[in-house]
């Protein structure tokens, strides 16, 4: 295989992944994607994990610089704290890409799983299933960047469809999230028994809502639309009479791969473009049942657009999924 420099010598390239969030399936799958692509490329990967400490994350960029890496992936974080750190890395001649955090730097490609698209896909399906007029419950916690972006779509949607009536908004990030949201959703359902649609644009929320709907015995009467997917979400959606109708998701592993590929392109002197968007996939209950999809592997196997994104994929780039 002819890889361009510096990838022609295996092990010559050292990159760092500087993480803000790490706990949970999404982040674990993202990491595995990063690792898989890094391995396929033969680069040495350092993982610096700030465990949701934004200040520490900025320091870790400096640390990565001190470690002498050639490329850095910034995974999540806050614009304000990462902007300058990212700039310092660029100044030090290091190539940087950022996933899901806007570091406001023209030299740094932004990898995105488009949260607005995620929400839009799910909501369009809701309108398709339920018509343009229904009473909704909405799960939202402000202040979390991806949820805020998904919220923008929801707000636009409510403007667009006057018949959609948000009867209740709730949500919490108390751990375990599904359990806490289930408690809240139960209360909301007893206060608003006429809710038809629950929009829970984060799978932990959806999981909690589903538990509440089941416990209230309303699984025939309510439909849940969400974002993100995991193996256990698939199981929950596949349950007989499951209220969880559809979810929109990007494959976090693919996003991880794309992040590394974009960085590799930069290192090889190519331009991945400033906005590298990984397109989301709509996954409906019907898809899962019809195609007999039981877990993430089946999903990748049977929905190819989910398994691989042809993003940042020049000809020389090894594809870790092609075995």
């Amino acid at each position: 295989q002819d890889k361009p420099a510096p990838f022609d010598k295996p092990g010559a390239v050292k990159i760092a992944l500087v993480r803000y969030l790490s706990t949970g399936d999404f982040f674990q799958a993202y990491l595995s994607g990063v690792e898989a692509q890094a391995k396929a490329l033969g680069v040495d990967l350092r993982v610096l994990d700030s465990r949701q400490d934004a200040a520490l994350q900025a320091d870790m960029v400096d640390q990565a610089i001190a470690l002498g890496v050639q490329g850095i992936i910034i995974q999540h974080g806050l614009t304000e704290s990462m902007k300058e750190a990212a700039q310092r890395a660029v100044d030090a001649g290091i190539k940087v890409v950022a996933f899901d955090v806007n570091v406001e730097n023209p030299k740094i490609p932004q990898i995105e799983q488009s949260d607005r698209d995620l929400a839009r896909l799910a909501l369009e399906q809701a309108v398709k299933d339920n018509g343009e007029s229904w009473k909704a419950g909405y799960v939202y916690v402000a202040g979390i960047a991806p949820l805020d972006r998904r919220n923008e779509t929801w707000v636009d949607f409510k403007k667009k469809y006057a018949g959609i009536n948000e009867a209740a908004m709730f949500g919490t990030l108390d751990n375990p999230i599904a359990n806490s949201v289930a408690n809240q959703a139960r209360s909301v359902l007893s206060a608003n028994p006429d809710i038809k649609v629950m929009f829970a644009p984060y799978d932990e929320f959806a999981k909690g809502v589903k538990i509440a709907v089941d416990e209230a015995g309303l699984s025939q009467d309510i439909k849940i639309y969400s974002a993100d997917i995991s193996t256990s979400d698939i199981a929950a959606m596949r349950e007989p009479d499951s209220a969880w109708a559809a979810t929109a998701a990007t494959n976090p592993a693919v996003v991880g791969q794309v992040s590394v590929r974009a960085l590799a392109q930069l290192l090889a002197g190519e331009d991945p473009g400033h906005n590298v968007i990984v397109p989301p996939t709509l996954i409906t209950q019907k898809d899962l049942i019809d195609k007999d999809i039981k877990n993430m592997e089946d999903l990748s196997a049977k929905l190819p657009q989910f398994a691989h994104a042809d993003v940042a994929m020049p000809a020389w780039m090894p594809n870790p999924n092609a075995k």
Partner: protein
Amino acid sequence: MSSGWVRMAAARDHAIRYGFIVLLFGLIAYFAVAADGFVSPQSAVFIFQSVAITGVLALGVTATLVVGGFDLSIGSVATSAMMAAAYVMVVLEQNAVVAVVACLAIGVIVGLINGWLIVYMRVPDLLATLGTMFLLVGLQRIPTEGRSIATGMTMPDGSVANGTFGAGFLALGRHRFDFFIPNLIPVSVVVLLVLAVLIWFFLEYTRFGRMMYAVGSNERAAELAGAPVKAYKIWAYVISGVFASIGGILLAARLGRGDIASGNNLLLDAVAAALIGYAVLGAAKPNAFGTAVGAVFVGVLLQGLTMMNAPYYTQDFIKGLVLVVALVFTFALSGRGKR
């Protein structure tokens, strides 16, 4: 000593004893008026259900409070038990009984470790249980490398875990007993009530419970009265561990998977319930009845506020406010109150 004085003192005594209960009923009355659908058997059952898990944890931590200790590890014991249950059933493909036994074993072992550290190694309670807390938070994620456990998941070695949550196990989270109304009372509520009555009876009416209070109040005096103080203290941590693992079982049964979660909120809510318990009936000391009422109190508050569409942050705020006000009321009036 005028009779006026006597009457005033009696009134104050009543305020201390029943103030908190009155507050609870006041809240219920308020929500009954302000929030549609608040008053119904289902709603009542639901309140119990929503606090069942934290309530069980709170009852456990009450036992350690009674012997003058504290257990910061309960939240992580619960989540560890949840992960273990899922691991046993999904990865090891064992049945529900094995899973439950494994969870309880975790509770016992962690309790013994905590007790051993505190009693024999003389590590202060907060410190020892903080240590085991961190340990467990890490440990529970190692077997799956930080992934949640669900049927069909891919293991770190690439194999697929095909076990499922047994129906019997899920029933712990989902089955409901008939009680006048069919399918009314969920298993978790029954578990909460049974454990509450058990630990209440144990602490109030058996000689073991009485001695645990003695140990908590004056360890040396209890020892010189013939009590095996070390055994009692270890026992308290084992109770706490087992109750926390029961909480974890209920959690797993409700969620139907092993969910990556720190359990910090479980810890805080359980501690809040146990501490609110101090204020119930003017006890000014840890007590199982108070803990149960404290848990229900938090449940009523959150249920009512959610039904009134209060956003989550106002719920925290009001939870804090009511807690502080209720407690000022109780402790300031009773003039006792020390841990």
